[in-house]
């Protein structure tokens, strides 16, 4: 389909081409074990996170250098978020939430490099992350509170007549959580990176209108912000779901 539209519209590159999953070696079919560009960029993200967090904090200087400051800022921010939103007893799950945040923020940011692949732009990737959160949070809720966890759906502050209706709504909204959780991240990343590609296409007329360079620069700045905010939102929603599981009373 992409090649058809290319011919019709005459674009040099298709804005959605960057999201195609292709094998790293050769042109064979993609199986679950085939190393693809997704595998490559996930590995790069993991290596970059390891480099930042392990090498950055290796010096353990009292006055941190730049790399250590970044690592400490990220750690402190997520630690405070978990403590504020999920409560003190949520800190037990801090390592997992920190891992989620770092992986998503690096997946988003690395996708902004030219010629790179945005791992988090695929619902398959974000869906797994969101489902992992959903399943583990539900399990934690039942393990911690037993059947009292179902009190999450039974709003005691509402009039008795309304409670069954509210319970149905709460139940539906509970089960669409993984959907909105994953599609929010994937949709934002896909749309944002496609917009950058479209704006980059305008730079072909840079000789006539230098404004196009300015426009793509501004879009890039906005996307840097969105890449960070979406990782932040994903993490903070994880904390909110965790809080619901730990303290199900309204």
């Amino acid at each position, binding site marked *: 389909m992409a090649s058809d539209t290319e011919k019709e519209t005459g674009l040099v590159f298709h804005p959605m081409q960057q999201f195609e999953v292709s094998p790293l070696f050769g042109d064979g079919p993609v199986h679950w074990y085939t190393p693809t560009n997704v595998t490559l960029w996930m590995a790069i993200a993991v290596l970059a996170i390891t480099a930042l967090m392990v090498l950055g904090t290796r010096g353990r200087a009292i006055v941190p250098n730049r790399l250590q400051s970044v690592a400490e800022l990220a750690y402190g921010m997520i630690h405070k978020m978990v403590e*504020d939103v999920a409560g003190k007893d949520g800190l037990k799950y801090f390592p997992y939430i920190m891992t989620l945040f770092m992986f998503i923020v690096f997946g988003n940011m690395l996708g902004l490099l030219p010629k790179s692949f945005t791992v988090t732009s695929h619902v398959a990737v974000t869906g797994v992350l969101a489902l992992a959160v959903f399943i583990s949070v539900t399990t934690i809720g039942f393990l911690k509170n037993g059947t009292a966890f179902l009190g999450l759906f039974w709003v005691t502050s509402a009039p008795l007549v309304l409670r069954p209706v509210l319970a149905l709504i709460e139940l539906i909204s509970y089960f669409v959580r993984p959907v*909105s959780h994953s599609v929010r991240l994937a*949709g934002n990343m896909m749309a944002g990176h496609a917009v950058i590609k479209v704006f980059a296409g305008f730079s072909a007329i840079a000789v006539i209108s230098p404004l196009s360079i300015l426009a793509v620069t501004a879009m890039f700045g906005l996307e840097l912000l969105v890449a960070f905010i979406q990782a932040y*939102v994903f993490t903070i929603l994880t904390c909110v779901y965790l809080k619901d599981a730990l303290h199900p009373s309204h």
Partner: protein
Amino acid sequence: MEGNIAQLGQYIGAGLAAIGSGVAAVGVGNVAGNFLSGALRNPSAAAGQTATLFIGIAFAEALGIFAFLVSLLLMFAV
């Protein structure tokens, strides 16, 4: 330009569903604008409420995402 009437309906439906994304933008703007007007009245309380702001934005955005999802389903899955 040949095609069938079902495909026409699909594309029109996907376009109509995309309106929902725009309406979600109104909701997100409403949340952010109200936060800003509240924050300017009492700046000292604003810093503690940024988490609530993002949660509110996320919930407002979720319904726009469903519209986007319906649009995607109509385009590629139906």
